């Protein structure tokens, strides 16, 4: 019995580790010199093998007014409102986005790209 308990104690940290949610942090260079673009290939392969279900990116959150203004300028919301009128895009944009996100054509379109590997990594020819 004691031996069995010891075995469980031994396995406990490993089990906790397996149950923990995994977050992979990848540091980028923002702009990579052309002659160093091939260095992206092993990075892309490693991340692909990690098989993430969620991708987070260094972009502003749309509802974070201060960050959006910092990136787009003080007038950014006014400019976008003017464009919204000019392009005849009605109100309720978030509802429209939700509907379009569920459009099966969108996901099937991305899936089609999975087959078109040469188009995916155009400059470095990663397949």
């Amino acid at each position, binding site marked *: 019995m004691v031996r069995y308990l010891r075995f469980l104690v031994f396995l406990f940290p490993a089990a906790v*580790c397996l149950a*923990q*949610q*995994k*977050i*992979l*942090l*990848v*540091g*980028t*260079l*923002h*702009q*990579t010199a052309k002659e*160093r*673009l091939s*260095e*992206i290939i*092993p*990075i*892309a392969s*490693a*991340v*692909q093998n*990690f098989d*993430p*279900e*969620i*991708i*987070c*990116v*260094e*972009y*502003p*959150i*749309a509802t974070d007014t*201060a*960050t959006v203004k*910092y*990136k787009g300028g003080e007038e950014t919301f006014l400019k*976008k409102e003017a*464009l*919204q009128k000019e*392009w005849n*895009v009605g109100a309720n*944009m978030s509802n*429209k*986005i939700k509907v*379009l*996100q569920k459009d099966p054509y*969108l*996901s099937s*379109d*991305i899936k089609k*790209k*999975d087959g078109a590997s040469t*188009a*995916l*990594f*155009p400059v470095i020819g990663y397949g």
Partner: protein
Amino acid sequence: MELQQLYFLSSDMGNADYQGYLIMTKIENDPQNEVWLGEKFPEYKAMKGSYEIKRHRNDEYFHLVFPLAAKLNIPYLYPIDDLSSWKEYEKYFDRLQVRDTTDASRIKFHQHEENFLRNLTSLPKDSSQWMFSNARKITDDLLYLNADIIDEDILNEDIRKLGYYWVQRNRIMAMHIDSVARTHPNSRIVVFFGASHVGSVRAQLNKLEIHYQVLTLPDLIK
């Protein structure tokens, strides 16, 4: 294209750029569709211009993140940046650009920067700048570069303020990642950001109530 337009107008720029990438790679060899899009959607030209500039600049999103997201069939990217107090950071950053050879703290601080840049530029051509920037030693060194870690003998107030705003940004970025993780429990998450953020966000994530298994590239590429 309609979705790209809606993301753009609602300031979700990461997903506007991602949709732009998907559209542009789809119509690359399809001039007929390109003409049709240009006629039907007034913002098509601006989107195409932005795509071409970023691709030409070898932006990592257009060469790594977007292709990978498409390959993994991921339709939406989660933005996590925070620049709400970045103007303050820049104020101290700009002040520190003026070299002061009389202040020992500033001399030491600039020495970190010079050492890092010297290492980066002296890398042999066949070594990987990407892997170098993700190596544990370097991500730790970068903490000094942004005054995330400040040695006790650094007394300069500008450096301390720079560190304060840098940590604040990374703490909020970690909170955004935590929020995404909580809404998608058990999902594997990858975060792409400038290499300077790796050490700082890792430290902030490790302070959270929930214990995540935080990995970096050297954990995957030995």
